[in-house]
């Protein structure tokens, strides 16, 4: 911690994270459950309801359209023609929409960095003075 040169050396440890592979091989667009994430997937009769069926991951249908999303994040899908709800932790999913970028600050010098357990905002925002 003696000088900025230490910063340079340690700078090699700095990394901008790369997006992790999601294993998304679905060609369909829209909101999708891509595949099972856990060894088994529980199917519920309602977003706040009961577990009515369990499927092994290998038998769980891939690339299934999401037809609903509950406030508690449960995802509605159709399996063999029947609608069920699945806990999102049990499946890999993809949403076609994207949360809008939050483009604030910069004069405050504050929103472009990752912080603690989290990442900063504004990375995709216009740069100051950009035309």
């Amino acid at each position, binding site marked *: 911690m003696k000088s900025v040169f230490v910063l340079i050396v340690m700078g090699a440890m*700095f990394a901008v994270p790369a997006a992790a592979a999601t294993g998304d091989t679905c060609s369909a667009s829209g909101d999708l459950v891509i595949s099972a994430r856990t060894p088994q997937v529980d199917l519920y009769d309602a977003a706040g309801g009961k577990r009515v069926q369990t499927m092994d991951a290998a038998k769980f249908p891939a690339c299934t359209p999401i037809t609903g999303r509950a*406030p508690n994040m449960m995802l509605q899908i159709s399996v063999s023609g029947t609608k069920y709800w699945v806990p999102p932790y049990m499946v890999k999913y993809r949403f076609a929409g994207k949360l809008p970028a939050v483009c604030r600050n910069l*004069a405050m*010098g504050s929103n*472009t960095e990752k912080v*603690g357990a989290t990442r900063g905002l504004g990375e995709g925002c216009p*740069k100051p003075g950009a*035309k």
Partner: protein
Amino acid sequence: MRKLVAPLSLTALLMLSSSAGAGLFDSNGYPSKGRAIDQLKPAADYNDVLKGRPLALGIMRTRGQGFVPSRELHDYAHGVMMRLLAGVKLPPSFQPDVHILATPEFAGECTPDGTLIISVGLLEQLETEDELAFVMGHELAHAIYRHQTPNWAKKAQYFAVVHGSAADAVAVGAQAMLGGQAGNNVLRGLDVARHLAKLSANVLMPQMSKAQEDAADALGFDLLVKAGYDPQAPLAVMDKLAQQEAEAAAAAAAAKAAAQKDKGNDSGGGFMNKVGGGLSMLGTIAAGGRPSTDQMADIAIFAFDSAVDSMADDATTHHPATERADMLSTYYFAAYRDNGPVAPTPLPWAAESKSPLKPHLIALLSHYTDAENASAFVADAHQGNAAQAQAQLARATAAPTSDHAYTDFVAAEYYDTRNPKQSEAALVRAAAGPEPSWEVYSKLTDIYIARHDYPHAQALMDQAVVRFEDSPVLLPKRIQLYVLEGRDGDAKALVPKCKTYDIDELTDACKKTAGQG
């Protein structure tokens, strides 16, 4: 704009196994079987770290615009924290608290004494109390496990000094732009300062290992479930993080391409000269001076060469959010699969909330959002317009945020060149408010110095010394003021104090300002 990340460290891994129980945890920090909370062995006594709270709070207060002075917001967040801890056997000396940092970043962290730091930006973007509870549970876990290293305060002070200098560079650049002097070099300089700030934030702050972060995810998850919150909430948090990571990766790729283009146009000097340029800029700023645009531009190459080009994924503190989500899912499946769905708890400012705090907190947070939007216009005139910004600032500086450092500082920045008296009035309001920030003190002191009103400047500086626990961040400006007041003896007397922090940039700045450099 501030903060942490840590090199993967064997020491940290050893710390984890000694504090959490060797052999009970996987190398990734999750319990090898069962639940983390059932295997929790808290320290017998937290008094040693608790003693460091005043210093930790002083350090945190020097960041940006400090803490949000809202009893209502504090009490709400404190209530969530206590709900998470209900029934957890911890010694009486474990006395966590929570503060809200006035920054639009999406940020959560924990100081060694057990103070959770939650940012306004986090509160603005989380969708349920359950999501907030997971972030707080994660940070509480760090405090319970005593993950922070013993030299946290020293590293945090170093970060504050160097990172604060980079932040000043951004402000200097912005002023140049507002003054109509913007040129390509200034714009490059702004970019540079921003990336330097990022570099220093990632490298200099006290850091934790991935295993410690994973352990905090596991225990944070347990606390969440035990408190009756929705166990899906961590996935929602990870979704938000994953999106930000993807945006950051795209921005980094673009920045690298731009840097390479700059390198192609660079007339030479080599890497070490760029490093020298960067050091020179830091020294100039730390000494209270204004770097040249060339100096600011030079450091771009330095920053990119040393950081972006040397990326190493395995050195980041956290796994990517998608991996963290997978690990949380695996843990959920193994330890909590039979738990049924839980209805999420709305945040008190959500439409469906029936909280008595709702009207007050909506006003408070919407004022911060107004200030953030006005700040975006200050930084970039293409983001909004003057009339809109004035209306936003009129709201932002009304009750209940009329004397908040964040809202008033944005107003001061906006009116800096348009109406200096109004700018100064905003700073005076904030300085007299419940949580004036160092940036407020610093900017107001500069105004007094410019008009040779040294008594007022000195009075502010004396207040700041107390408020920020005699922070080293203040030292160059304190020396500068003594010199201007003709108190050369007092100025020189502070130089040895600068040296005690063992920060070369600070020592150099102090000596230079005191006329010894």
